[in-house]
């Protein structure tokens, strides 16, 4: 509709990226929690976990990356909620700008912030002995899945960001998402789990995403998991986007 979409989005993204870089605690907590979990599982619990692989950190890293994104998007909801609460969201919307830029700036900021955390976590993983035999294409494929996954969860985070009535409510929705990898193949193979739990673990999105990333890192052929993972990501993205846009339109009705 307006010709300023890209310029306005760039200006507003620059603004919210400053929020990220100026509150170092958010960067640290988004990367530190998954790193601490990785340390705990590799050096404390890992010895007792039999995954049928040589290196537990190599087995574990894909799941840790999922947890990194799941905890990172809580800040996306938080930043959006604060913009609404402070009235600056209204200020932007009463200005002659491309209105959709306001949400997209938050989405792009979320992507950038989460990708930075992912890189940090991968680097720590490498220090801890994570090894991948993936080629450039494999790494690109992993990057692609993670970007898609982050985008899907980011739009999911937009919903509480727009509708929450308190700061706590805005970020609390991330807890179940952080918990989901525990009931998946992220930490232990699903074969050891009792029937119903195993059924749940094998049919929830995290398992297929983690398996696909694990296979790509290992350089082994990726089976149906890749397509199931992509389908989950796209489905979550589409549904979350539609619900988020409906919530957005209700704000301005």
């Amino acid at each position: 509709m307006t010709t300023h979409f890209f310029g306005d989005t760039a200006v507003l993204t620059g603004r919210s990226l400053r929020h990220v870089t100026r509150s170092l605690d958010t960067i640290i907590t988004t990367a530190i929690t998954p790193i601490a979990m990785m340390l705990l599982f590799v050096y404390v619990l890992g010895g007792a976990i039999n995954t049928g692989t040589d290196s537990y950190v190599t087995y574990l890293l894909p799941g840790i990356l999922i947890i990194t994104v799941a905890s990172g998007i809580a800040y996306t909801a938080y930043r959006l909620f604060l913009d609404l609460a402070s009235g600056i969201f209204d200020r932007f919307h009463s200005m002659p700008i491309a209105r959709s830029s306001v949400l997209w700036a938050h989405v792009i900021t979320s992507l950038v912030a989460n990708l930075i955390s992912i890189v940090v976590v991968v680097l720590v993983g490498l220090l801890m002995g994570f090894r991948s035999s993936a080629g450039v294409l494999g790494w690109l494929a992993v990057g692609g899945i993670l970007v898609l996954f982050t985008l899907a969860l980011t739009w999911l985070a937009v919903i509480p960001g727009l509708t929450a009535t308190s700061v706590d409510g805005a970020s609390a929705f991330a807890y179940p998402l952080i918990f989901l990898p525990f009931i998946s193949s992220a930490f232990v193979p699903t074969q050891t789990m009792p029937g119903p739990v195993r059924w749940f673990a094998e049919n929830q999105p995290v398992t297929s995403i983690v398996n696909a990333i694990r296979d790509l890192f290992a350089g082994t052929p990726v089976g149906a998991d890749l397509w199931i993972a992509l389908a989950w990501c796209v489905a979550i993205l589409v549904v979350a986007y539609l619900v988020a846009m409906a919530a957005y339109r209700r704000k301005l009705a």
Partner: protein
Amino acid sequence: MTSTPVAAPAITVRGLEKSYGKVEVLKGVDFDVARGSIFALLGSNGAGKTTVVKILATLLKSDAGSAGVNGFDVARQAADVRQSISLTGQFAAVDEILTGRENLVLVARLRHLRNPGTIADDLLERFGLTEAATRKVSTYSGGMRRRLDIAMSLIGNPPVIFLDEPTTGLDPQARLEVWQAVRELAAAGTTVLLTTQYLDEAEQLANRIAILHDGRIIVDGTLAELKQLLPPAKVEYVEKQPTLEDVFLALVGQDT
């Protein structure tokens, strides 16, 4: 249509209605604001003042009625309305994490103006914020925030400015600073619609005052006209006591 055939009013509101669920907030609001004047919308908390402002600023859609700002219809020509206005919301809508100067540059960029840096520096000086320019806004006092907020609203010289309860929560000194800024705006030809719950604020600033009560405008006129609604003034002898505000300002050492 209105009493001023020369220039069309800057704001026209006709039969505006708005409900939130079953709660009818506005039940048919009508008023006009003349170009270059200060118009005060007075009402108690929850009277619907903010709802009126939000509809005029294209942030909410009315259920019925029409509203025009600077000659544009708020529902059908929202983009033109946004080009003509600035909104200063109920709470200083400034970015706490950015510095004062960055806030101004941000707004200048979003209004697609050239030389955002120069615009920011000019406004910082005009509002006495030059020394605080590079500090994070979270370190500002309430009055400084409000001044920055109003300065942000002036960028691009919009002909119509909405100030929603501009002095709520400010100390007396900051209040006087804001009043001064509003007077200067109107002197420069900007139309100002302000909402307030402080009667003296309307009395001090406004050319016209409308009282919004129970979803309707119950009175609309100049201060003199409103005063005529009550029995004529009687002459009484009252000992002139300084008000607490006089005392406070004298002690703090800041005269108007």
